[in-house]
């Protein structure tokens, strides 16, 4: 079964493509829109995107497998991305990652059985002044400790 883009997304994709001097340059924005629509990039959507942009499907696959923010599998409703780079690890990021592993009972890269949370470790998020930090979907959370993590997660329904 091939996933269908909603009319609204189709319109936005068209608009995005028209902004670029060359169609293929809109690949990343179009893939972002695709991921917004389905929560990941289904294999069938790769072909649709290739057709819309007039490129070979392998070009789309190359991009998806290169960029870490593009996902080929469904993620949890909340994607918890904990920074494990230097400024955060100096201030205890590793302990927080361990805490989240125990709390959610998943390893980094895995999703909870109820599909609510996916846990990932990521490289520098660019919020080192608030280390240790994490990003949940697109929201940043800084100056973390176990208590703060508990209250952030409790607020996510």
């Amino acid at each position, binding site marked *: 079964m091939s996933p269908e883009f909603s009319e609204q997304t189709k319109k936005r994709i068209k608009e995005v493509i028209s*902004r*670029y*001097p*060359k169609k*293929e*340059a*809109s*690949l*990343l*924005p179009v*893939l*972002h829109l695709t991921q917004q629509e389905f929560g990941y990039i289904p294999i069938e959507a790769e072909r649709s995107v290739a057709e819309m*942009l007039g*490129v070979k499907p392998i*070009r789309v696959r*190359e*991009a998806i497998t*290169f*960029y*870490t*923010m*593009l996902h080929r599998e469904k993620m949890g409703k909340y994607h918890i991305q904990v920074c*494990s*780079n*230097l*400024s955060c*690890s*100096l*201030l205890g990021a590793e302990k927080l990652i361990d805490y989240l592993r125990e709390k959610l009972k998943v390893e980094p890269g895995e999703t909870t059985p109820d599909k609510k949370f996916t846990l990932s470790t*990521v*490289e*520098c*998020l*660019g*919020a*080192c*002044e*608030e*280390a240790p930090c994490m*990003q949940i979907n*697109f*929201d*940043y959370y800084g100056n973390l400790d176990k208590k703060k993590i508990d209250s952030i997660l409790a607020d996510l329904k």
Partner: protein
Amino acid sequence: MKEKILTKNFGLKNNYKIEVYLEQKGYQSVRKALKEMTPEQILEEVKKANLRGRGGAGFPAGVKWGFVPKVDKPKYLCVNADEGEPGTFKDRYIMIHDPHLLLEGIIITSFCVGIHKAFIYIRGEYEIVAQRLEQAISGAYERGFLGKNILETGFDLDVIVHRGAGAYICGEETGLLESLEGKRGHPRLKPPFPASIGLFQCPTVINNVETLSNVPAIILKGAGWFCRQGLPKDGGTRIFGVSGMVKKPGIYELPIGINLKDIIFKHAGGMKAGKKLKAVIPGGMSAPILRADEIDVKMDFDSLVEAKSMLGSAAIIVVDEETPILEVLKSLAKFYSHESCGQCTPCRIGTSWINKIVKRMIQGKGKKEDITAIHRLANNILGNTLCPLGDAAAMPINSIVEKFSEELESTLSN
């Protein structure tokens, strides 16, 4: 009296809204540049200001613009907002707190070089920042600072925010171009340089967010004034981002050439309670590490080269005595092996082997030959790759192996 150039509006609420920015006498610099100056005069002023690239390489912006050939092809500006150098968060602050300052820089630069389309390549993680930029851009369109016939001068410019998708390598300028063309961010062989053959094979200027944000002040107050804020050959201020084991991590806009010790102990409040300084990374993770006895150094491009490190993105990471140096090495090795784009063998394989060896050392299974192996692998990457990522991995790793060899040896099992 030194002034703030980049952070002067940071406390201001809703400054991303065009009406608030205009109340602060915003867009004066664009008016002056487009109405009272010729592109040649702008170029001359920016060259005289010795504005060096704030992304890391420190190349003079005016000289870069001057390389763009006068050919009958579209020209492009790519704003590098792919802020990914570990420890760096300054551009995020500029784009959130004063996005119109950046837009003014973009408009003046584009007018100077003859560009009608600019892309802001922003890292995908900064989605909220990208939305803020888009709000600022639409305000600028509404008031006629962007779009067709800007300020009735006949000059046209469109600005597009382009989101990356999580790849450090796209902060390298030719990796950025490839990515913007819809491909993997594999850096290109240089020359040709982007100024002559860049985006879609057309002449392209690529500048960092902070670099461009300095342009409005240079136009309004002049190159002489700008140089006096920093050093004659390295004009202006820098936004130093301090993180790690200090009392007050954050951003500090200070004159170029300020002492590193003063930034850490005066501005950032010194070490966190009870901690002793062990080492400092002075310019983002790619910069070779300085020992505690080496931090009496001026923070400008040339002084740090002399100190065998680099100013880079001016991101200062402070490491305390209790943190094992092996932990710092682990962060470095893990980061570069993850972010190597895989195009050049020495970098792809070298960073991954170093990472494996360091992991083994962390587990207490390090052997004596491991330290020399790391050194040898790093030296085989150095200078043998298409882009600077290889060197950026090898140099700081080598600096740790050389400066902290005793501590590393003490972790080995026999």
